């Protein structure tokens, strides 16, 4: 559990080799058209024609489809059912039961929305599977993002498994003193207090030592920072980014134009 702190899958693929910023632009180059272009089948087409092939191009199709099945589909599915049943309006009634009405219009609207969510979450998933967090941060720092900002993001990503481990230790310690964490719901809620307290205050105390540790490595040095990772930014990346920018702009314009 502690060995793997990110979703990143180390592989060699054209998608892995892209500059992190290009991939970041790609996310928005997919999301904006999916939400903005007024043509009904846009999100569906994007998913099948762009997102799925990208998963194969990045050689992470197995992990991507596994994540989709576990995480993305349930969310999109839930949204689809709720919207299909509760969005008012629509003339073509397909089915009616008690106070619920299913119309063709609400069904289509819900389906498109579910697809938009699929495109959005999928593009983020692909990004995280093919981009190492340090690589993204090194690249953004070199482009002028303040080091403190990058540190906060990376440290937050890393802190979750640490907090989990610490929480487990505290739970074990409090249970060995007789804290009841396994009976009724009300008792479990009450048991949270002696668990959360040490976790939060313990973490606050640790912050001071952590601050000393990174200061001891010259974190606040005013000298320009360098990076261990060499981040390539090929002409292909620059070209792609311009293209994606154009796509986003086109999506925005199409929205303004046709509505």
């Amino acid at each position, binding site marked *: 559990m502690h060995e793997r702190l990110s979703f990143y899958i180390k592989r060699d693929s054209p998608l892995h080799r892209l500059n992190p910023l290009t991939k970041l632009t790609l996310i928005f180059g997919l999301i904006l058209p999916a939400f903005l272009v007024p043509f009904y089948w846009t999100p569906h087409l994007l998913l099948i024609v762009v997102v799925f092939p990208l998963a194969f191009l990045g050689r992470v199709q197995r992990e991507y489809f596994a994540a989709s099945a576990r995480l993305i589909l349930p969310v999109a599915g839930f949204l689809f059912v709720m919207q299909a049943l509760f969005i008012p309006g629509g003339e073509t009634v397909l089915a009616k039961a008690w106070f619920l009405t299913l119309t063709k219009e609400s069904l289509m609207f819900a389906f498109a929305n579910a697809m938009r969510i699929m495109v959005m979450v999928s593009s983020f998933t692909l990004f995280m599977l093919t981009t190492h967090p340090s690589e993204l941060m090194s690249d953004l720092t070199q482009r002028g993002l303040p080091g403190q900002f990058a540190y906060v993001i*990376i440290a937050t990503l890393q802190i979750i498994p640490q907090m989990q481990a610490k929480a487990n230790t505290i739970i074990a310690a409090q249970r060995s003193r007789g804290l009841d964490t396994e009976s009724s719901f009300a008792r479990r809620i009450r048991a949270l207090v002696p668990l959360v307290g040490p976790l939060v205050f313990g973490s606050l105390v640790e912050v001071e030592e952590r601050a000393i540790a990174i200061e001891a490595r010259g974190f606040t040095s005013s000298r320009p920072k*360098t990076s*261990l990772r060499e981040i390539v930014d090929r002409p292909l990346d620059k070209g792609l980014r311009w293209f994606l920018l154009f796509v986003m702009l086109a999506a925005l314009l199409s929205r303004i134009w046709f509505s």
Partner: protein
Amino acid sequence: MPIVKLHQVTYHYPLTQTPALQAIDLEIEEGEFVAIIGQNGAGKSTLCYTLAGFIPHFYKGELQGLVEVDGVSAQDSNLSDWVMKVGLVFQNPFNQISGAKYTVFEEVAFGLENSGVPRPEIIRRVEEVLQLTGIADLADRSPYSLSGGQQQRVALASILVMQPKVLVLDEPTSQMDPIGTREVFSVIRKMAEQGMTVVMAEHKMEWIAQFADRVIALWEGKILLEGKPHQVLTDERLLEKGFGVSRYTTTARLAIPRKLWQPERPLPVTLEEAVAGFSARLHSNAPEGQP
């Protein structure tokens, strides 16, 4: 010329009345290995933080007197320049991991990235220091997946890679098991042999006796004793003030009235010295005519 110079240093933590350090005078020569002993609250950590620049730059409070390293006074310097000269390693190995890096190699490189060292030199220096600290085989592991002793060697490597002139260690092995302790001390010994100036606060007397050129005993923020390791570590006054003493010293002290230790022989601090002393006594005691 001494590389570290403290003159009449007194320090109060914010909102406290009693000084944590009181009129400390200390000079450390280049390449010297100085050990600091003392009970909890005696000022060991405070002294370490002062040498490492975290007092007065990180902890506020009131610092009086002169703190000078390599001819520059702490008050005239800023923390990020100071840490390039004086490296600090402290107790808890877990909290010394930057939390921003995914592998040991990157973790060790963090300080060099911050100080703007070019990439080829970073790689060369990190590889070198990983060899030196004996953790080259851990380079691709996550720093969080390591044992305490391994993590502490990563912390040590992360500081050594910055090539400080003075290495300050605040009880670097207090949270280690015996194996972790040996791993960490073997690295420190190597650094000392290469001529690095080392200041170490430590409880483990036997290790101090083997390493240190000089021992300083702190008591209530003042220097109580100072001198050669054996002279300080076997001093009667340590007992009076309730310092921890090596069990070999205690054993020999108890043995003197029982005529099991020759009183003219200096008291031992390490196992080897105790063994040597007791066997010398045994042999001198051996009845005539026997080999």
